[in-house]
C-alpha cells in the first residue's frame, strides 16, 4: 500500500512538471517570457524517480534543463513560475531565471548555465558533508550526456572516488547535446564505461520507468554512503526541441514519435491501473489537479511585481564589503 501511495505521488509530481513545462512553452512561444528555457518534457521520470529516492536531508544539484528537477525536489511552483517570468516574488527575485533556479538553504544547489560546472561543486558539497560528519546525507548531481564530455566531469569523478564521497552522479542521457548525438560526440557512447577508470561503479537503466529509477537510486543512496560515488545512466528522451529555437533538423519525426510511445507519465499511469492503485477517473483527476495548480502559479507570476530597480545592485556581495578593522 505504501508503495501504491508512492507511485501515485510520483505520478502527480510528473504531471505537475509536465503542466509546468507546457505552460512555460505556451508563454515562450508567444514571446511573453524574456530569456531562454530548456524543457524536460519526456524526461520527468528521471527527475522524480531520482529525487523521490532521497531523504529530506540530502542535497541535489540540477541541470540547465532543471525545472522538473526543482519541482521534484519540492520547490514551490509559484515562486519558480515567478522567477521565470522575472518577478520579485521569484525564487531568486528574477535575477536568475530559468537556468538558475536554486534554493541552497533548502539544499537545492541549483541548476547551472555552465555545462560541467555542477560536478566539481557537487564534489565540494559532498566533501563538506564528510567534514561536518553528516553521516546519513548524500549529494545527487544530475547532468546531461553531452556534459559528460567536459573535463570537469572527469576531474570530479576522480576527486569523488579519491575522497570516497557520498555522491550519486546521475547522467540524464537523452541521446543528444543540442543537435549532437552521443554517437557523434563520444568516442565510445557507452556512458557507463566513463566512470570505470576511476573505480566508480555504474549502471545503465530505463529512465522512463519511474519505479526502476526510484529503486536504482534508493540502492545507490545506501551504496554511496559506505562506498563512495556511483554513476547511474538514466536513458530517456526530450520530446521538445533543445531550447526556444530548434527546428529538430538533426533527428527524425519517426524517432521522436517512437519515444513519445514510451512516455514516462503514460507508463506510470498504466502501472497504476495494472496494480489497481488508481482508476481511469483518478488519473484524469490527478492531471487536472496539476493543471489547476499551474494555472494558479501563472496567475501568481503575472500578478507579481518586478523587483524595484533600486534593488538591482543588491545581492552582489554578502554583508558590508568595505570592512572596518
Amino acid at each position, binding site marked *: 500500500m505504501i508503495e501504491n501511495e508512492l507511485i501515485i505521488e510520483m505520478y502527480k509530481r510528473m504531471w505537475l512538471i509536465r503542466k509546468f513545462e507546457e505552460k512555460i512553452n505556451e508563454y515562450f512561444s508567444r514571446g511573453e517570457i524574456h530569456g531562454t528555457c530548456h524543457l524536460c518534457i519526456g524526461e520527468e521520470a528521471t527527475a522524480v524517480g531520482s529525487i523521490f529516492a532521497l531523504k529530506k536531508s540530502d*542535497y541535489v544539484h540540477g541541470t540547465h534543463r532543471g525545472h522538473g528537477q526543482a519541482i521534484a525536489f519540492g520547490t514551490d511552483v509559484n515562486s519558480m513560475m515567478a522567477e521565470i517570468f522575472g518577478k520579485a516574488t*521569484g*525564487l*531568486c*527575485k528574477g*535575477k*536568475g531565471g530559468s537556468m*538558475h533556479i*536554486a*534554493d*541552497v*538553504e533548502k539544499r537545492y*544547489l*541549483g541548476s*547551472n*548555465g*555552465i555545462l560541467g*560546472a555542477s*560536478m*566539481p*561543486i*557537487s*564534489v*565540494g*558539497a*559532498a*566533501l*563538506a*558533508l564528510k*567534514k*561536518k560528519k553528516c553521516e546519513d546525507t548524500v549529494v545527487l548531481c544530475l547532468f546531461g550526456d553531452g556534459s559528460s564530455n567536459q*573535463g*570537469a566531469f572527469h*576531474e*570530479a569523478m*576522480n*576527486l569523488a572516488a*579519491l575522497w570516497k564521497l557520498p555522491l550519486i552522479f546521475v547522467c540524464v542521457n537523452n541521446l543528444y547535446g543540442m543537435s549532437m548525438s552521443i554517437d557523434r560526440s563520444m568516442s565510445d557512447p557507452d556512458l557507463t564505461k566513463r566512470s570505470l577508470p576511476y573505480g566508480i561503479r555504474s549502471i545503465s537503466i530505463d529512465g522512463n520507468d519511474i519505479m526502476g529509477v526510484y529503486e536504482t537510486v534508493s540502492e545507490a543512496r545506501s551504496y554511496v554512503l559506505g562506498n563512495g560515488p556511483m554513476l547511474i545512466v538514466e536513458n530517456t528522451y526530450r520530446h521538445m526541441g533543445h531550447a526556444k529555437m530548434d527546428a529538430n533538423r538533426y533527428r527524425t519525426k519517426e524517432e521522436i514519435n517512437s519515444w513519445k510511445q514510451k512516455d514516462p507519465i503514460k507508463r506510470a499511469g498504466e502501472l497504476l491501473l495494472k496494480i489497481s492503485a488508481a482508476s481511469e477517473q483518478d488519473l484524469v483527476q490527478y492531471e487536472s489537479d496539476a493543471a489547476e495548480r499551474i494555472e494558479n502559479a501563472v496567475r501568481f507570476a503575472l500578478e507579481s511585481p518586478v523587483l524595484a530597480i533600486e534593488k538591482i545592485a*543588491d*545581492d*552582489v*556581495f*554578502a*554583508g558590508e*564589503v*568595505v*570592512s*572596518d*578593522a
Partner: protein
Amino acid sequence: MRELTYGQAIKEAMTLEMRQDEDVFLMGEDIGVYGGCFGVSLGMLEEFGPERVLETPISELGFVGAGIGSALLKMRPIVEIMFSDFSTVCYDQIVNQAAKIRYMFGGKNSVPIVIRMPDGAGTGAAAQHSQSPEAWYTNVPGLIIIAPSTPYDAKGLLISAIRNDNPVLFFEHKLLYGMKGEVPEEYYTLPIGKADIKREGSDITVATYGRMVHLCLSAAEELLEEGISLEVVDLRTLSPLDKRTIIESVKKTGRLLIVHEAHKTGGFGGEIAATVTESEAFYYLDSPIERCCSMDVPIPCSLELEKNVLPTKERIIASARGLMK
C-alpha cells in the same frame, strides 16, 4: 617587534584561523609535506592533519569547484592555486560560479572562499609562470581582490579575507615571500577596501600595490635628493577600490603616477586613471597621468630580457621626473 617573512605571516594567518574555526581548511596541490610550491604551509600538515590540509591532485577546475561547493555548505575553504597563471583552467569556477552564485540566486546564500595565488615575475619562469592577472578579474562583479605588499598587511588582510563571507582572490607576489617585516603575534584584522598611504609626500601621488610598493618607496627615497616628493598609496585592495584615498591624494599633489607589474594595456592602471579623471581631482591635475607598467609582451625568461619588460626603480624614477617637467 617580532619579525616574520611575508610567507610566514600568511601561514600564521591561516594557522590562527584554523585553530579558532573548525570550518576553515586549506586545500591545494603539494601543500602537505612539501609545504606548497613556495613553502608557505610548511608544518601545517603536522599541526592540522591531512583532512584540514587537504592535498589535491593536479586538478584546479575540480578542486576550486569543490572549494566553492563546500563553501555553499558553510565551510570556509582556503584554496591555494600554485601559480596565479593556472587560474585560467578554473576560470569558469571563479568567474561564472563563485562570483555569480549569490546574485543569480537572489542573495540567499554566500560563497565564503579565499583563493590564494602567487603572482608576479622576476624568477625567470617565463610567460606561463610570471603573470600578474589581477585585471582579468577586476572586471567581474562579485569578487573581492586583495594584493598585500608587506608581511603585516598580508596577515591582517588574509584574516579579514577568511572572515569575509564573499569570494576573495588573494594575490601574493612570489618575490615577497622571503621579505621580512614586523608582525604582531596576536590575531588582528585589516580593513578590506581601504588603501594605505605608505609614505606621505607633496609632489606626485604614486598609486601602486603588491611588490611595486617597495620599488616605489625606494624611488621616493632617491627622488627626495632631487627635491621631488612622492606620496606612495598602497591600494592593498583592488576590488572594491578605495577611490577616496586616491582622489584626496591627487588633489593634494596635483600629479598621478600609476605603477603596476601587470601589462599596461587593459591593466588595472586604466581604472585608476579613470577614477581620477571622473572625479573632482581632474581639475587639480598639473600634468597628464603617467603609467609605469610591464611592457605589452609576454614575460620572457632571460634575466636581461625580463628586467627590461618589468617596471624597475629606474623606470619609476624616470616617469616621476617626466611628470615634474
